[in-house]
């Protein structure tokens, strides 16, 4: 078959089919490509993470802050609660925004306290935002027989943690006047970011 000798009608038909084939093939390939993009998830470091505060390794405990390799989990040990007196840790750890824009934060309960309610009065967490309207509290209180935990997360901040800004997580403790020494309680909370 010699393509040069094809009749004009057949050439036109072939050309039309070729054009529609190119169209279908390229649109299909583009749709497939968009499918591959939609199913690709890239691993990326978190922009908002914990950093060490000035209260770390100080106090009667002393307070020890341990950050994981990605700085997204902070474990604080050595916190103390005085009998019938409140104690405030203002700067054990801070939440830092390494991103280029503001992020909204909130506090949420993760593991509620369950032990020794007779020894404690409260343990409170405050996300100490620069703007008063963005401050969020998560309070765990005890009536001497059982703990009362926050049932849900706080509302999201409105102004948010700006780029390169940092907010301390303040922790307030108070033990019962009749508390037994060396009794402990474990609490876990999350700082949600959006």
């Amino acid at each position, binding site marked *: *078959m010699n393509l040069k000798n094809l009749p004009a009608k*057949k050439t036109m*038909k*072939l050309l039309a*089919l*070729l054009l*529609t*084939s190119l169209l*279908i*093939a390229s*649109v*299909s*390939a583009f*749709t*497939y490509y*968009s*499918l*591959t993009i*939609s*199913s*690709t998830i890239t691993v990326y470091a978190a922009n908002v993470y914990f950093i060490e505060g000035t209260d770390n390794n100080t106090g009667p405990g002393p307070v020890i802050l341990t950050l994981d390799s990605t700085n997204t989990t902070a474990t604080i040990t050595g916190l103390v609660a005085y009998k019938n007196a409140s104690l405030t840790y203002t700067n054990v750890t801070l939440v830092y925004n390494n991103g280029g824009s503001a992020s909204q934060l909130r506090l949420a309960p993760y593991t509620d306290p369950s032990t020794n309610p007779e020894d404690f009065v409260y343990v409170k967490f405050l996300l100490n935002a620069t703007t008063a309207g963005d401050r969020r509290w998560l309070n765990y209180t005890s009536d001497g027989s059982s703990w009362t935990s926050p049932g849900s997360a706080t509302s999201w901040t409105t102004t948010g943690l700006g780029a390169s800004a940092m907010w301390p997580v303040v922790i307030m403790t108070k033990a019962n006047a009749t508390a037994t020494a060396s009794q402990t309680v474990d609490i876990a909370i999350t700082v949600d970011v959006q």
Partner: protein
Amino acid sequence: MASALLPEFFALLGIDLFLMLSLLTCLLDDRMPKALPYIYQMAALAGFGHILVSKNFFTVFGDYMRFWYCFIYLLVSLANIVAVNVYFGVVNKQWTIAKFWSGAVTFPSILISIFFVANYGFLQGMSFPLFLQIALVLSAIIMGTSIAIFLSPEVLRNRSGRKRR
């Protein structure tokens, strides 16, 4: 890291095969039904519909379902290639074109499809046992030579004639 094939790749392959069929049957339209190129274009469009459905129901359909409806579409396109081959060889008795078709279209299309299906299975963590690989290569060789002999009866005739002499 190599990116994994999505099941929709088989639909894409099937679309390309249908488009190729459409153009080739257009070139050979004096030996084929006139409507065939347009039917194959429609079939390719249906394949595009497959991919669109997958895109819109990406999270609803599981991998298993997406694989099977795309794979069946590819099988349909391969079946059409084989059917055209058989049409040339058996119905039209045009051995030369049938031979050309089996060597240039049928055989490569089937091998390419097998390659991608095996590759997909490998990326999905399926083992591809050695005996199956050997069986695949053997069956491909046997299929290729069988089609060539089937479509070139004179080869067999010459061979048997030589033996008789």
